[in-house]
């Protein structure tokens, strides 16, 4: 606990130093506020537009959460299917790589056309790009079970479902969490990018990405900074929620969680 407080204090010290540096740059180079507002201007913007900032944050958080949960559910189901045979993997795995390499900006207009602008289109875009790491990591965890453990199960005449649900699936949980950790970052980024393309201007539907677009078109640079700050807060929260869940599910038995206790 003491160590954690220390780490927090260190991080805050770095933050304060950055703010000071920021202010110094403004003083020394006389940067106009529409290029780089002062930290205080950003703080004022946060206070003045807090309700709309919070609403944009909530919308993007919701889209990202829906995308992440959907990608976990779908990703695990696909991975369970992939784990059935090497033949299935060889046939279908290239398509998950395709999913990863297709630039989302290229298919966003299509999704916009099919689903229409709005939160569902944004969540769909975020879902598509957060899916591949879940599939890849979970599949890896399902198929990388040591041979002797499989033999142990065979010696007890284990059925296929028993092998899958009592051996492969629990064995894959740490890998699944690696995937979720990666996907949690991507889901947030995906939602913001999605909003740039498919965000809706309707009241109560514009998320952070949409607001960023709007603020930049109006040269409201201080508010733009506040919005960027909000995306950082969102990304951090997602990451730490996932880290906490990982610790919660794995700390009793898994080595990676053990290390976290020591830190």
């Amino acid at each position: 606990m003491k160590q954690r407080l220390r780490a927090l204090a260190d991080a805050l010290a770095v933050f304060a130093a950055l703010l000071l540096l920021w202010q110094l740059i403004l003083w020394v180079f006389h940067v106009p506020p529409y290029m780089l507002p002062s930290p205080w201007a950003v703080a004022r913007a946060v206070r003045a537009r807090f309700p709309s900032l919070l609403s944009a944050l909530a919308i993007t958080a919701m889209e990202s959460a829906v995308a992440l949960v959907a990608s976990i559910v779908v990703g695990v189901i696909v991975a369970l299917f992939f784990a059935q045979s090497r033949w299935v993997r060889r046939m279908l795995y290239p398509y998950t790589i395709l999913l990863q390499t297709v630039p989302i900006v290229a298919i966003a207009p299509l999704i916009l056309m099919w689903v229409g602008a709005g939160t569902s289109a944004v969540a769909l875009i975020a879902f598509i790009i957060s899916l591949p790491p879940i599939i890849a990591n979970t599949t890896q965890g399902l198929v990388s079970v040591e041979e002797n453990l499989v033999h142990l199960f065979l010696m007890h005449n284990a059925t296929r479902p028993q092998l899958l649900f009592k051996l492969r699936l629990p064995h894959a949980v740490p890998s699944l969490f690696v995937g979720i950790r990666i996907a949690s970052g991507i889901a947030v980024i995906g939602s913001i990018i999605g909003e740039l393309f498919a965000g809706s201007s309707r009241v109560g539907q514009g998320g952070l990405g949409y607001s960023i677009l709007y603020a930049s078109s109006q040269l409201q640079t201080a508010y733009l900074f506040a919005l960027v700050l909000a995306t950082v807060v969102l990304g951090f929260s997602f990451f730490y929620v996932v880290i906490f869940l990982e610790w919660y599910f794995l700390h009793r038995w898994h080595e990676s969680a053990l290390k976290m206790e020591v830190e």
Partner: protein
Amino acid sequence: MTPEPATPMIELSGLTKRYGSGQTILDSMNLTISKGEFVSLIGPSGCGKSTALKLIAGLALPSAGTISVDGMTPKNAREIISFIFQDATLLPWRTVQQNVGLGLELEGVGSKPRKEKTSRLLELVGLQHMADAYPRELSGGMKMRVSIARALSTSPRLLLMDEPFAALDEMSRDRLNEELLRLRAEQKWTAVFVTHSVAEAVFLSTRIIVLASNPGRIHAVIPIELPLPRTAALRDTPEFEARVIQVSHALRAALVQ
């Protein structure tokens, strides 16, 4: 009155295993193991001793020859076989007690009789106080005890062991050897035991099969007629030492060949 001929538990005839590359791991091995025997397979690496064990368990298929386990094919005989691997093969997400109960669980035994049986087995291997611990909290010797308890949970009549104590320090290994014999005296299973250690083989076995490599084949069969039950004190006797020397000589001869 002559004693009745012992009934065979395992009959290997002409057992041959070749890899896809054409390398012969085992070359027409003939071996009969009677019920109640404790047979050790010992030999240089590459002599096919682990392969022979996997073939008896039906975890690998022979290239030629036949295997009969209590009159059945290896796969059909799995109900009466337990296999103990070189590593303890515990499931890290399960507690000690849940690990011991794995075999019973897979075979459909309900949770209440399972709990009773696993508690009894944990007591038998001296780990009742660790029932709710996770494997990562155990020492190597403790993990192996859990593995043994799990193997015994399904009341096997044949125990196949693939260098189970190879990774342990000598003291834990000696202690587990003694425990293994104590358990055997109570439960009367037949055992096939693969090892690198001559002393361990002599201490445990009623018969030692020395294998030679390239291709793997039987080099010598040495019965160990030391009296049962055997205790730690046996290791200090000249009879024990004489057997160790005899087996070591055979092993050296197998290496030179």
